[in-house]
């Protein structure tokens, strides 16, 4: 279970760290006026600074937030059930390519995770990559990653 307060604090910290990183990395690009005009780092420096200040404000407000549950444990289970396989899918793309990865991803989530009937899951898992191939590589000539596996197999 995650409380609203924890969520607010986490988000404010994330944005604050991002802002700080922007500020730090733009300082060495120069942050002011020089003979060439406004230095390259000025604009990012200012925006980063604004992000940091506003994040601190949100952090303080978040501290006062209620501890009521914002994401219940069943919500969290649903979230992980969607997101974890998706991350595995994305991680698998460089290895096996989009086509194999998307087929396995569909089969895995449908048949294993949601106990959907196997023949139907298989049908969807096979149709998905074929549809992707037809739409992207054939109709619009956008080449999708084939992965290291395809290189090995010589496609």
């Amino acid at each position, binding site marked *: 279970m995650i409380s*609203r307060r924890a*969520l*607010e604090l*986490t*988000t404010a910290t*994330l*944005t604050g760290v*991002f*802002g700080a*990183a*922007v500020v730090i*990395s*733009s300082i060495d*690009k120069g942050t002011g*006026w020089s003979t*060439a*005009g*406004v*230095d*390259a*780092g000025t*604009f*990012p420096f200012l*925006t*980063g600074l*604004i*992000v940091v200040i*506003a*994040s601190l*404000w*949100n952090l303080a*407000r978040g501290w006062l937030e209620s501890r009521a549950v914002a*994401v219940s444990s069943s*919500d969290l289970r*649903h*979230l992980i*059930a*969607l*997101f974890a*396989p*998706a991350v595995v*899918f*994305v991680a698998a*793309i*460089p290895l096996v390519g*989009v086509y194999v990865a*998307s087929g396995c991803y*569909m089969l895995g*989530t*449908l048949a294993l*995770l949601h106990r*959907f009937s196997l023949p139907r899951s298989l049908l969807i898992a096979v149709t*998905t990559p074929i549809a*992707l191939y037809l739409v*992207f590589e054939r109709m*619009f000539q*956008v*080449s*999708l*990653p084939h992965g290291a596996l395809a290189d090995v197999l010589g496609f």
Partner: protein
Amino acid sequence: MDNIESLLHGFTIAITLPHLALMLVGVLLGILVGVLPGLGAPNGVSLLLPLTFGMQPVSAIILLSSMYWGALFGGSVTSILFNIPGEPSSVATTFDGYPMARDGRATAALATAFGSAAFGALVGVMLITFLASWVAQVALAFGPPEYFAVYFLAFASFVGMGGAPPAKTVVSLAAGFAIAAIGIDTVSGSVRLTMGIDELVKGISFVVAVMGLFGIGELLLAVEEEVQAKAVSSRIDWREVFRTLLNLPRHGWALLRSAAIGCWMGITPGGPTAASFMSYGIAKRFSPRSARFGQGEAEGIISPETADHAAGTSALLPMLSLGIPGSATAAVMMGGLMIWGLNPGPMLFIEQKDFVWGLIASMYVGNIVAVALVLVTVPIFAALMRIPFFIIAPLIFIICTVGAYSVSNSYLDVVLMLGFGIIGYLFKKLSYPLAPLVLAIVIGDKAEDAFRQAMLMSKGSLGIFFGNALVTTLVLAGMALLLLPLVLQVAHVRTTTKPILD
């Protein structure tokens, strides 16, 4: 009268067989993304964007804008039939649309929604027809300081009128600007904010950000809420449709008021979502039948729908004439314009007459196509909603992944999209607004350039932003909007503490 002539010329461009076909495809795809929870207009349009690179700009914009109209209509279908808003901007339609449909008047609810939506869109397009070229003409005289002042005003109005907590809006905006600055600086040529990742030199595409923020973010929210379609009957009774449409003029005052609210929120970038909520709220407060709101009152459907579509349409006015998009989807389209090699802003009306007027004419036709198509296809798309979400969700995820990849054939973009997805989820959950973030990513570079050019003109003095009456007015108006939330809060504290003091 020049405008009418140009518009007629525009119709000769818009009403050709290929363009009508594109409208048809665009509207259908739009309804599809509008109906599916987890896919919305901004990321629907950005998914199509890489596929338009080989097209004529006017054909491409007709396809994308038609998709936008379709999505606006599609969002209302699920709001009314399933009590599931397909789009954030159609949340307010569920309040009265679903109760009306549940009482067995689904056709009446849908026809009311589509009829008033079409009216809102019509008002929006007419506003563009008569005002856009005039605004562009005024804007032609703008120099860098004026431009920066207009950008400043646009962003300040998000903070002042967007409705989200001001500090959160500021984070969203400023983070967007920082993201826009990543990569090569166009002025000095130096590489900024890549944090040691070489591939970031090319910058972060707004398409990737939109795909993650809206696509993955929405998906995570939808799966958490466990959307389950409990449909009411979706059969359309055509006689009822015509009866309802003929009855609409009786709500003339509500229609006009909502259209005005919508146009205002579309032009000052408040966006369709804020417009529909505001319009519903005002209708509820001032309607003599306000007690019936929430139980299937027609005006409770008319008000948000009219405002939603009026805002969605008129959001293209500042995009075309000033280069400042009025909504997240308009921002994505504007990014498209820049990719196709066009320069959004007043010069469009001089250099790209065919493009501008072809688009404006297509908005009239496209909305008619959308109303007709959405009525005919309601049963089909309603059936689509019966597919379990656990099948749709991974499919949407795959589509977003492939979409993010196809922007520049980069795997890093896919990883970035995942990151933006988490941010999108957190931001939506905690009511950080996403539209300013996207807007800032799209026009961040232009705003920065305007600022730096203005500073070159003044040799580093900020005084240039108070150099003439126009700039001063714009900057002061922007500052007033920034301070508005603070003033309102103080006023609120005063009025709530007064009784205690008495």
